[in-house]
């Protein structure tokens, strides 16, 4: 009996070894994705399945950030540090990875199917196939505005007046929460866009060249406006509110305005609220003509991949399979980045947004500027998790911006040391 058992084990071992040897010849690529409620693992797996059906000799393995407590960039940094960096990945801040040589630059012409294949180039090279455009602005409760005789504000002062009216009526004007670390940063991005980047869209590159400082009159003004909204008009519970609770506060009619990104259209599309939702860009001192746009996210290829051409083909497949890309855009009612029009079922508010921004000046979202304008590695997290939180609870704006400049010095020194 023992002999028979030993024989079976030996045969299994030999078979296993042979199979592994054959399997090693298979083209296998690992795709690291951004799993979120609107884009669950099943969605990403369906992309892999469709590609594998069209390319039977390629195997695509999907991996994703294991928990909502670990952000995608954190997870990708862990993979890189442990020699498990994927072949293809959703990339949110390439500026953190490019200095370490982790990403493969696309060749000229690789991304010709995109509207702007040059957006976000770093040192003249493109590392990300940008797959979506998102805008940030203010969602508002139209019924609540009408009931209180409030028109859509066209200037910052009008927005403050509207907020005062709402406060008098016992309504929380803005739904903002600090507990998750990032949502409050969107409002800070909006003000930085209208007061700083609208004047100088490539201010980021100047900061990176150390020609300007974060502590400058325009950014001070922007952050003071942001502080005013957070400390006076965001209700008493700003520190304890999560992103989900922010949404709940707005969609259940407890707060009148929600300053956030266009991805919230996915929530509006569910149509669970019993009021009409509108949208406007954060107004400046004179008018409301600037909109902040995020174009920082897309697909990148790992520099050490064994199959760069397969990876490029996979990315091409993602963008050119209209049904697939349409599903992706529909998930958050996104703006397409491809030359060819991709149709999907849009909600009226999303169409209205597109009409509104068609005549506006577009600037990049401050924290997620791309290419040579991008923050140095680590500074995006400092901006969202530290500076904007401190300012939101009343810290001195100029001191916080000075501290941000000091962080810049440390990040710059690290880059110089590594070089």
């Amino acid at each position, binding site marked *: 009996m023992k002999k028979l058992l030993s024989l079976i084990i030996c045969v299994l071992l030999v078979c296993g070894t042979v199979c592994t040897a054959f399997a090693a010849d298979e083209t296998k690529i690992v795709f690291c994705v951004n799993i979120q409620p609107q884009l669950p693992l099943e969605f990403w797996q369906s992309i892999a399945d469709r590609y594998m059906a069209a390319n039977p000799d390629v195997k695509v393995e999907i991996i994703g950030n294991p928990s909502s*407590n670990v952000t995608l960039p*954190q997870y990708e*940094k*862990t993979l*890189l*540090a442990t020699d498990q960096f994927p072949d293809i990945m959703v990339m949110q801040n390439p500026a*953190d*990875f490019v*200095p*370490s*040589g*982790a990403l493969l630059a696309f060749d000229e012409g690789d991304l010709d199917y995109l509207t702007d294949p040059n957006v976000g180039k770093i040192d003249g090279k493109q590392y990300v196939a940008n797959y979506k455009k998102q805008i940030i602005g203010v969602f508002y409760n139209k019924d609540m505005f009408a009931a209180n005789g409030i028109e859509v504000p066209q200037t910052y002062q009008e927005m403050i007046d509207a907020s005062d009216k709402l406060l008098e009526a016992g309504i929380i004007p803005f739904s903002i929460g*600090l*507990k*998750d*670390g990032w949502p409050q940063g969107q409002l800070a991005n909006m003000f930085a866009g209208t007061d700083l980047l609208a004047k100088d869209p490539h201010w980021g590159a100047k900061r990176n060249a150390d020609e300007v400082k974060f502590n400058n009159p325009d950014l001070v003004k922007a952050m003071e406006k942001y502080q005013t909204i957070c400390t006076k008009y965001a209700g*008493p*519970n700003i*520190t*304890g509110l999560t992103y989900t*609770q922010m949404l709940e*506060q707005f969609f259940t009619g407890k707060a009148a305005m929600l300053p956030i990104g266009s991805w919230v259209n996915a929530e509006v599309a569910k149509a669970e609220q019993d009021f009409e939702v509108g949208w406007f860009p954060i107004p400046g001192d004179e008018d409301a003509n600037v909109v902040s746009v995020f174009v920082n996210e897309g697909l990148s290829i790992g520099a050490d991949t064994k199959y760069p051409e397969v990876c490029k083909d996979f990315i091409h497949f993602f963008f050119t399979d209209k049904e697939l890309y349409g599903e992706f855009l529909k998930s958050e009612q996104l703006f397409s980045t491809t030359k060819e029009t991709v149709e999907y079922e849009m909600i009226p508010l999303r169409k209205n947004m597109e009409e509104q921004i068609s005549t506006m000046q577009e600037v990049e979202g401050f924290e997620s500027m791309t290419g040579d304008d991008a923050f140095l*590695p*680590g500074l995006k*997290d*400092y901006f969202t*998790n*530290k*500076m904007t*939180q*401190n300012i*939101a*609870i009343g*810290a001195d704006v100029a001191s916080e911006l000075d501290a941000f400049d000091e962080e810049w010095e*440390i*990040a710059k020194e*690290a880059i110089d*040391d*590594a070089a």
Partner: protein
Amino acid sequence: MKHNKLHDTLLVAPGYLIYTIFMIIPLGMCFFYSFTNWDGISKKFKMIGFKNFVRLFADADFYNALKVTLIITVITVLIYNVLGVLLAVILNRKNRVCAFTKSAIFVPTVLSSVVVAFIWSYIMQTDGGVINILLGALGLSPIDFYATPLRTIVMISIIISWNGLGLFLVIYVATLNTIPTELMEAAEVDGANGVQRFFKITLPLMMPGITINSILSMAGGLKQYDHVKVITGGGPGGATQTITLLSVEKAFEYNRRGYSSAIILVLFILIVIVSALQLSITKRREVKY
């Protein structure tokens, strides 16, 4: 029984191997990286001497994290040990109420700290949290547990203690059961009252338990990560950040693995010093009979 050296070595080898792979080597790497400017993802880095340590001791975030960590450690050590000893003495009786109470206190210990933190973050919600709903039903005004960093840190310390008290209680009850009943009976015959018996007999004879529990609770407090990560994420603006949270933030968000290693090395030294001090103090008070 004769000892065979080879036999003994083979028996302990797996343990030593695991300890070396998962403790000694990472600690050595941490020590090494703390003197580098490694960003955690690049293949190259430079030796920068004590630069990380110089920057660390001038870093306001580090001192704030140290303060938060110490507050949590002091509160949890006090609750685990003072309340733990008292509860052990009170509940060390053989009846159903005591058995049920001990079980009830032990139940949270088997729950994952992350699960506990999630449960409590819902309980503590200012708007719609269980505590505030109950307060509202009693006609009282709601409590904003996140109103100030100190209030949040104290609340987190209480949650940590609720989560872990059961284990400390079990150790104290076990220690109590090692005290010979003859000593208590003799003291009673000699006319010692309950308080005298507690301070003169029970407490000195519980010292071995107090030694182990105080070291465990102190090290746990200094290493605190998961509850704070789930409940506040260290915010707002790092105001409730512990040393371990700060270290992870520096490594994985700011790309400063060398600096992060320096933070962990300082924490390690701190734990070693405090543990050694604690051990020497409590060991001296242990009584032999």
